[in-house]
């Protein structure tokens, strides 16, 4: 009978709690104990063990799996195909020529990946084998971490790291809490409090824990670190009790136990199912604009390659139409060749030509580009100037694929709090019913001694006001989630704070709260601690007041407020609510709303962060109701958040306004300077913030985003209330377009002079109206307005809206390159969405940093990151890409022309060794080193003169005209080289002993000229000659000569041909060969030098001008140059309009 009742009760509980769907949940038996028979028809699920496998390969599958992975890349696959074609059919070049480079590339990559995987294996092993204490049959047993299973009860001691995701059962602390730091998960070093399950927290020895008889039902693992819903069914005396479990009960793998002697907890997610493991999945790949250009160029070259092969095949068969040419008596085919079908022959010929010319798309380019990116990114990490002494952090590169994109940024989206500002809050003032209180001692971070006095600007509040004032202070002392961190647990924290020994800190995930609580300390009310669900406050009379903390309605960014429900010593119940003005005022029924609102607005204009405080008396009946609602919502497994939000909405109403606070968030060091530089560099800076408009606008003025003469356009709810959105949009666009009508879009909106500077302010609500999918034309008009504004401020933004904005700009017709920079979890979405995401190592945890592509300690480092590193990487990689194509055109085009002189027979011009090594060793290192250390302009000049950044805007060095110039230059060089050698060889001798040279000497002569020409071309492009450049450039030329001497100097026994024997040396023994090499190199380089000099003299770019100044030892007053630049732009703009 008893069991049936309990079953019924379980069913009822479950029904009330309201799960509809059980598919996505799991059941865990704590300590592997079966639930009482008949209680539930649980199905035991199979869970993985706790082995962490971050490695990708095992010893056995490394080779096949790695090969598969590598050949999935298009380029590698292409070369594999070429290699296979060479193996299968009779091709002009031996398979070695493409096989060897491919093998080299594949091997190097494989070794690198293998090494990384080996490191991961090592790390995995050390984690998997670390000993864990597990409770089995009432005894503590040591187990290896990897043998841990779901349902095991583990004993964790202080400073141990959790081996898997655990539900806290009990702790050594009486109140069943434990402190945890998640520093290695999200970088927050603050101690977070976690709570044991109410009904099990008394069981805190291994014997007792072992007799817990319970099951846990919870959702299947999901990657969100901060969400967890579950339920524990405890069978006490066969009487099941269901309790909710939330993220406050869940200890995550990777976090560390602090300040708590030991805890007992049960494993629920193990191994690869832990939240941390789920979070280490790879992000979506971002591709840089350069990479896209490179791929476009590749397609062009592939077309050229196919065309070449096609034309040659066609010509071959036209030429061969006469049998005397096809098969003259001296050159017969074998019988098998003759019997081959014509179609097969044509096809093989086509493939053979493809193979012959395939070097035009070089394998080594991919390797070099990757090496350049990989090695180049170290310069960011090594940068001394991007190291922050205060944080002890340096810049971090999470992906090196986007280095050059840093030089292409057109739009910067920045978060305000913590990014532009310090996120270091200082309590400035508070206002109770219109009376303003200002604490005189300013301090932050730590509780300062003797700061109990206070100044009152507005004195003599009446007795009623006095009561309100005290209530306000108490409200601020109670309504928060601040913890007190005890440095030493000697005779109590109370002592510490009271006597002014700085032994305790306030810690909170929100710096505002810390500032408020500290501010209260200075106004006479000190929050001491939370003990046994009682909050203790030291009031002005040094008496301890105790409030029982009943409920915490936690903060969320949608509601923008939080509340607590407390019971004071006299038993009265209060709800204190604290939140943004916009979320409090509508819920207020009485209080001096107007006075407070005036003060709030005044403070907001000053750039202060304001919060309003309100309260409400609760009768015991009301409290009952509230409790019921909250518990109902909390127990829900599905839609818990939604139901909680609904409950909160009902509870937080009919409030009485107490007052408001103002907290200052100081601007980050050099934030204004950075923004100004970014502006000058032609970037548009948008501030996206969740703050309210006035505060955000004030920050924008302070950070020079808006200037005094900036004309502010508002697109806010306030305006759209007066006019329809449609009218406002059209009004604004008319204003803007009237001014900028004639201006080209990429020209920059002047900083001074005649060009009016526009700034746009838009808020979240209006934005979502604009973005409504039905209104496509609104979007267009909005974009049009934005384009013509130098600065845009978006306030009241939800995190997702930030990403939407970025997406909107990304998708606009110019497809600008966007960069998002932020520090908090609310910026993650935009960081992931933007082309380049930059995380600031701020105070709001490490989520932004983890999801970013690059992370920097401070906002000011963005300047060097973009203006110096970005600029360098861009010019480096663009030269790298163009040069690579150029040198391969030079390389392959002579071979193409040669086909016209050898009966289209696919005879290679160069020897196999030259074909193979050209890209691998003769010409690879100079360009790699160039692309690592080139500096066309001095670093300091780049930083001081941001307008130089415009010179490379819009992918300017990889545009089609420039690409065509390089290609034509390559073709010209190839023609010079080929026909130079042709006329030299034409039917005569050029040795002094009358002997003749053959075809290999012909090829070698061209090849020698080629290697020297392309290397000298790079030397001409190099502006920054360090000893490394000298070494590598001259070194590879020397290497070429030495190699050639060696290669031709010996009869190589392993080769079945000796065609290169003494060819190089015989060539060098001839005077005319030397003379023609010199001549051809000079003739090849001449046009490029000429073009450079003439362009520099007649149409110098800003970059070139600066270079000229630097070269002539005249250091320009940089201001002049930039002024001149802006002047010229303004002249241009006024000229047009």
């Amino acid at each position, binding site marked *: 009978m008893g069991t049936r009742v309990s079953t019924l009760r379980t069913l009822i509980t479950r029904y009330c709690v309201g799960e509809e769907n059980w598919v996505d949940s799991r059941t865990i038996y704590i300590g592997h104990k079966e639930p009482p028979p008949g209680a539930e028809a649980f199905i035991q699920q199979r869970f993985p063990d706790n082995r962490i496998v971050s490695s990708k390969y095992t010893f056995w599958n490394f080779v096949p799996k790695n090969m598969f992975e590598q050949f999935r890349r298009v380029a590698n696959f292409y070369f594999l195909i070429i290699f296979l074609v060479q193996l299968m059919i009779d091709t002009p070049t031996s398979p070695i020529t493409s096989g060897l480079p491919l093998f080299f590339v594949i091997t190097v990559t494989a070794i690198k990946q293998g090494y990384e995987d080996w490191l991961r294996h090592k790390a995995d092993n050390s984690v998997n084998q670390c000993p864990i204490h597990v409770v089995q049959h009432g005894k503590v047993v040591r187990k290896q971490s990897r043998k841990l299973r779901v349902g095991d009860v583990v004993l964790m001691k202080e400073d141990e790291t959790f081996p898997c995701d655990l539900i806290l059962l009990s702790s050594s602390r009486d109140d069943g809490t434990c402190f945890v730091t998640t520093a290695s998960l999200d970088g927050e070093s603050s101690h977070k409090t976690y709570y044991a399950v109410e009904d099990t927290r008394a069981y805190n020895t291994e014997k007792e824990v072992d007799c817990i008889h319970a099951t846990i039902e919870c959702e299947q693992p999901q990657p969100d670190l901060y969400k967890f819903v579950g339920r524990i069914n405890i069978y006490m005396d066969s009487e099941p009790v269901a309790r909710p479990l939330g993220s406050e009960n869940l200890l995550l793998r990777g976090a560390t136990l602090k300040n708590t002697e030991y805890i007992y907890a049960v494993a629920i997610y193990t191994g690869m199912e832990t939240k941390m493991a789920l979070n280490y999945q790879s992000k979506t790949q971002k591709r840089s604009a350069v990479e896209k250009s490179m791929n476009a160029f590749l397609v062009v070259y592939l077309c050229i390659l196919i065309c070449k092969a096609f034309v040659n095949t066609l010509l071959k068969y036209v030429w061969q139409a006469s049998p005397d040419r096809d098969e003259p008596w001296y050159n017969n085919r074998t019988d098998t060749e003759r019997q081959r079908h014509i179609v097969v022959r044509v096809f093989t010929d086509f493939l053979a030509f493809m193979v012959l010319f395939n070097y035009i798309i070089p394998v080594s380019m991919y390797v070099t580009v990757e090496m350049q990116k990989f090695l180049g990114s170290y310069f960011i990490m090594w940068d001394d100037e991007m190291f922050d002494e205060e944080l002890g952090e340096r810049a971090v590169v999470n992906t090196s694929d986007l280095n050059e994109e840093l030089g292409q940024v057109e739009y910067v989206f920045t978060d305000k709090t913590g990014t532009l500002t310090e996120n270091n809050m200082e309590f400035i003032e508070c206002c109770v019913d219109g009376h303003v209180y200002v604490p005189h001692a300013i301090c932050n971070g730590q509780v300062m001694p003797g700061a109990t006095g206070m100044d009152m600007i507005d004195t003599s509040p009446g007795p009623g006001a006095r009561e309100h004032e005290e209530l306000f202070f108490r409200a601020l002392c109670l309504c928060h989630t601040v913890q007190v961190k005890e440095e030493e647990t000697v005779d109590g924290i109370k002592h510490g704070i009271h006597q002014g020994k700085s032994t305790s800190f306030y810690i909170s995930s929100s710096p505002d709260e810390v500032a408020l609580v500290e501010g209260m300390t200075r106004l006479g009310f000190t929050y001491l601690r939370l003990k046994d669900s009682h909050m203790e406050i030291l009031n002005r009379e040094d008496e301890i007041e105790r409030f029982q903390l009943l409920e915490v309605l936690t903060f969320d960014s949608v509601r923008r407020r939080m509340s607590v429900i407390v019971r004071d010593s006299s038993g009265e119940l209060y709800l204190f609510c604290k939140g943004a003005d916009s979320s409090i005022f509508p819920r207020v029924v009485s209080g001096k709303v107007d006075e407070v609102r005036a003060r709030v607005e005044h403070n907001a204009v000053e750039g202060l962060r304001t919060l309003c405080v309100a309260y409400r008396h609760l009768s015991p009946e009301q409290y009952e109701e509230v409790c019921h609602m909250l518990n109902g919502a909390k127990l829900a497994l599905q839609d818990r958040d939604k139901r909680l939000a609904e409950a909160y909405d009902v509870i937080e109403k009919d409030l009485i306004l107490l007052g408001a606070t103002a907290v200052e968030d100081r601007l980050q060091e050099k934030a204004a300077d950075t923004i100004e530089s970014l502006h000058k560099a032609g970037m548009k800076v948008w501030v996206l913030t969740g703050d309210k408009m006035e505060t955000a606008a004030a920050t924008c003025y302070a950070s020079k985003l808006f200037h005094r003469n900036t004309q502010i356009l508002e697109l806010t709810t306030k305006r759209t209330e007066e006019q329809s959105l449609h009218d406002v949009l059209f009004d604004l666009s008319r204003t803007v377009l009237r001014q900028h009508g004639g201006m080209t879009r990429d020209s920059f909106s002047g900083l001074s002079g005649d060009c009016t500077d526009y700034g746009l302010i838009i808020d979240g609500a209006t934005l979502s109206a604009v973005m409504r999918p039905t209104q496509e034309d609104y979007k267009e008009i909005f974009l049009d307005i934005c384009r013509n504004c130098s600065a845009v401020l978006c306030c009241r933004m939800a995190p997702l809206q930030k990403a939407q904005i970025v997406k909107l700009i990304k998708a606009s017709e110019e497809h600008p390159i966007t960069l998002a920079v932020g520090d908090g979890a609310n910026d993650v979405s935009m960081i992931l969405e933007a082309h380049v995401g930059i995380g600031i190592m701020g105070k709001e945890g490490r989520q932004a940093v983890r999801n970013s592509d690059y992370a920097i300690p401070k906002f000011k480092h963005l300047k060097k990151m973009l203006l110096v590193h970005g600029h360098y990487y861009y010019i480096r990689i663009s030269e790298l890409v163009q040069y690579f194509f150029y040198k391969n055109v030079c390389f392959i085009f002579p071979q193409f022309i040669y086909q016209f002189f050898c*009966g289209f027979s696919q005879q290679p011009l160069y020897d196999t060794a030259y074909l193979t090594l050209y890209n691998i060793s003769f010409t690879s290192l100079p360009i790699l080193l160039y692309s690592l250390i080139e500096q066309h302009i001095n670093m300091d000049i780049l930083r001081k003169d941001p307008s130089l950044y415009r010179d490379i805007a819009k992918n300017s060095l990889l545009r089609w005209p420039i690409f065509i110039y390089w290609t034509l230059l390559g073709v010209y060089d190839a023609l010079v080289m080929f026909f130079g050698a042709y006329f030299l060889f034409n039917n005569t001798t050029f040795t002094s002993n009358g002997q003749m040279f053959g075809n290999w000497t012909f090829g070698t002569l061209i090849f020698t000229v080629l290697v020297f020409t392309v290397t000298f071309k790079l030397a001409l492009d190099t502006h920054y000659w*360090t000893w490394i450049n000298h070494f590598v450039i001259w070194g590879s030329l020397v290497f070429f000569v030495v190699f050639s001497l060696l290669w031709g100097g010996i009869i190589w026994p392993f080769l079945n041909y000796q065609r290169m024997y003494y060819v190089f040396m015989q060539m060098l023994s001839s005077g005319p060969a030397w003379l023609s090499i010199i001549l051809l190199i000079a003739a090849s380089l001449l046009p490029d030098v000429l073009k450079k000099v003439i362009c520099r003299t007649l149409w110098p770019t800003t970059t070139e001008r600066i270079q000229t100044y630097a070269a002539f030892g005249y250091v320009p007053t940089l201001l002049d140059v930039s002024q001149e630049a802006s002047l010229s732009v303004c002249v241009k703009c006024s000229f047009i309009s």
Partner: protein
Amino acid sequence: MMASSYNAKDEDGHITVTGPGGGAVLRSKKPENTAFKQQRLPAWQPILTAGTVLPAFFIIGLLFIPIGIGLFVTSNNIKEFEIDYTGADTSSPCFNCSQNFSWNSTSPCTCTVPFYLEQPYESNVYVYYGLSNFYQNHRRYVKSRDDSQLNGNLKSLREPSKECEPYAYHNNKPIAPCGAIANSMFNDTLELFYNDPNGTSVKILLGTTGIAWWTDKHVKFGNPGGVDSNLSAVFQGTTKPLNWRRPVYELDSDQSNNGFVNEDFIVWMRTAALPTFRKLYRIIGKSSQMVPTLPRGNYTLEVVYNYPVRSFEGRKRMILSTISWMGGKNPFLGIAYITVGSVCFFLGVVLLVIHHKCGNRNNGAEISN
């Protein structure tokens, strides 16, 4: 430390840099302040401006033009005489030979071509034969040889490389030397006679050595079995190339110029770069200081016409040429040097003008600003 702090590698092999903050917290994160890491290595920073390039242009101009003139004059001083004896025209003395050509004919066809040298050839004279429209650089042709066999490897002598196909075996006997190149070796015999004004015809002595590269003759090519072996015995069991009239060991009576090291053979085996080419045939050494090697006058070229070229519209020529330090007659290099030199010089002048007009204006404007 956590295993996963090594960033999971992206799927498609892109490089992910594991940040230094990955976990090694103990290590100081302060970057080293070295010149290399801070990208402040001392460097020379040249730039190409009109000012710096100008001298280079003038120097190149002033260097190249004299060199070019020197080369041009040298080339012009070289005497060269060329005569086509293909026999394509009916009027040509070799017409009959070229018409009635057959590989199987046993009696060689001989024709004589008279010519007149207008100038005496003072120094050594080099005799070349030239072929046109002959694709020695055809891929199938170029690779149709066995260098190992030619080097004297006995194994390759018996089993020629398959690259030699279809000229590797004949009647199941290995061909020595194998391959299309060897098979099509030029086998016309050219002889020169000086017709003395007094009516006698003097045969001119043609030197057969020194026409091939020294390294080819002594290292790259070698007879099987060493220098002193009995060639006919060594080549026992092989057969001569199909088109040859004599086996390889009967190319020359001189043992050091016989077999694979025969210089005519070696010269032929060095495939030409272009379809119209010439190859060194003989050297007429200068006999005494007093008499020119080839005095002015009438000569006769006697050709034993063995080599068919008309099937592929080829041409055969005989060339007499003197040689200077820069080789045979080739005005190209001289002209090219003069051209490039003058272009450089001209551009130098143009740049000088530009530099003076614009450079000054630019600099002046900047400085006054």
